[in-house]
């Protein structure tokens, strides 16, 4: 490997600058230092672009009412107040909505894993009649997005008296996420060598036991990746929850109604937004690696 190229830097700092090989003329677009500066500028730009709206929301939620309405707006709150958060926690129905969101999210994660893990295992390990058809069917759910089935789902739920229940949300979310989770579990199972199960089968285990005792314990990372992806999806889903629930509102719907209720009081609204963001962001930052793993394994297909 030629020494001195940037790509071989260790993870910490930049490597030595590129040195041209003797006898090779190279056209430089920009000097390496400028290139690096430009690159960092772009990265910084992306980071600021990503974070600024959220930081501004956070800042607003910590300012007292007068400061919010002041012009010119100040980026950092001069005085920090928690009154908006207290308002949201005690005077609104948001805590109830949090409860609904938590229940629906937990139930969906559980049900999705329950349904999709064995299916992913079978798809990874076995060739069986109908497998390609099955996989194609699951893949083709991508062409049926929420907006298309919103109206029929609403009418169906209405007819089945399932409107405004946990059950209807859990069922629909599960159905929507099973294809992705199945694909994720399938790729994780495929990465586990089959020899151990085959050994177990030879030893007299049934197929179910082989899956249960041998493969499943090794699929933790896959399940973690699926769980975090399902969590993010269900917690943040809006349009279906808006349509199908009234009293059993989830957090996202609660935010919307907070906004369209009696005029917009930005202090309280931003506080509510931050409160709704926090669980998802925390889960995401903690389990980032799993999240990315899951995405690349399943996202192309789901």
């Amino acid at each position, binding site marked *: 490997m030629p020494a001195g190229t940037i790509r071989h830097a260790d993870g910490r700092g930049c490597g030595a600058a590129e040195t041209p090989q003797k006898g090779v003329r190279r056209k430089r677009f920009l000097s390496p230092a400028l*290139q690096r500066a430009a690159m960092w500028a772009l990265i910084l730009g992306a980071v600021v672009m990503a974070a600024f709206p959220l930081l501004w929301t956070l800042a607003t939620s910590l300012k007292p009412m007068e400061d919010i309405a002041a012009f010119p707006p100040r980026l950092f709150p001069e005085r920090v107040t928690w009154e908006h958060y207290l308002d949201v926690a005690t005077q609104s129905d948001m805590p109830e909505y949090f409860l609904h969101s938590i229940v629906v999210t937990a139930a969906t994660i559980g049900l999705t894993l329950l349904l999709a893990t064995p299916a992913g295992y079978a798809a990874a390990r076995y060739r069986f009649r109908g497998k390609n058809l099955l996989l194609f069917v699951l893949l083709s759910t991508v062409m049926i997005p929420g907006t298309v089935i919103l109206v029929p789902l609403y009418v169906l739920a209405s007819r089945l008296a399932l409107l405004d229940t946990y059950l209807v949300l859990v069922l629909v979310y599960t159905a929507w996420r099973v294809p992705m989770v199945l694909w994720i579990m399938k790729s994780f199972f495929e990465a586990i060598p089959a020899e151990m199960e085959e050994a177990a089968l030879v030893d007299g285990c049934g197929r179910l036991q082989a899956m249960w005792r041998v493969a499943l314990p090794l699929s933790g990372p896959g399940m973690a990746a699926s769980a975090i992806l399902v969590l993010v999806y269900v917690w943040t889903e809006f349009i279906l929850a808006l349509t199908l629930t009234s009293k059993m509102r989830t957090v996202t719907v609660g935010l919307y109604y907070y906004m369209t209720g009696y005029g917009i009081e930005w202090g309280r609204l931003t506080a509510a937004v931050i409160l709704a963001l926090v669980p998802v962001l925390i889960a995401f930052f903690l389990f980032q690696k799993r999240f990315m793993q899951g995405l690349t394994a399943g996202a192309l297909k789901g």
Partner: protein
Amino acid sequence: MKKGEQWFALTCCGPATAVVVFITFYPVAYAFGLSVYKTNFARIQGYVGLGNFVRLLHDSTFLEGIYKSCVFVFISVALSMALGYGMALLLNRDLPCKGLIRAIVVAPWVIAEVSAAIAWRWLLDPGLSPLMVGLRSLGMPDLDFLSHPIWAMAAIIAVSVWRFYPFPMILLLAALQAIPKEVEEAAEVDGASYWRRLVSVTTPLVWGPMLVSAILSTLFYFNKIVVPLVLTGGGPGNATELMTIRLYREAFYNGNLGYAAAMSCLIFLVNLVVSLLYFRVLRAEEGR
């Protein structure tokens, strides 16, 4: 393939498939069934056959909505792909704090669309937003983005792209990281400049995932409803009334569920066409 295997595999897959088919496919058929009726909220008022579809073809707001959706999708996909690829290239190096940077950049995708729309609505407030300070310092008058038909559309595109471009970025980053380093280095040694390498070597190698991301993004953008609904509600006037917003308004504001079901069918057909393209590309990719 033993017989017992077949049975076992089908049992494993059965419940999942059943749930998916019943809750995802059946409603589509149901929508077609519903679209032949005239309804008032959830009550059926009469059979109109293809009447709803005929009405749709003459509904100028809906037809405009399709046009607006196309504009929205085209610009958004172009921007997301450009930004996604650009960021993927930037992040495909050894950088300090790479994980943190990546996490922050991806964060907008993780938060709820409602939260993003509310945060941006606040940021675009004509009176009190720091953006206005920026505009003023450039000598421009305060702009109320959301009350101007063109700027409102720009706003929903910007917010949607802001939120969504991490998706192609992640996919392209994974694809870039799959390129063996030797390939890049060989090109470098041969004396190619950065841009030359990018165009002739790197990009063709990630062309497959790029195409897949683009088509998936198209699919997703056609069905975006939350950001426009919360940010502009279809306004000002009808400037940002995408076909999805029109659907929602017709179904749950005006209560015409049968008519809305007909709209759903049309939107489904749009999705079908794009998805078929997607399957084609996927198959070609897998063939490689």
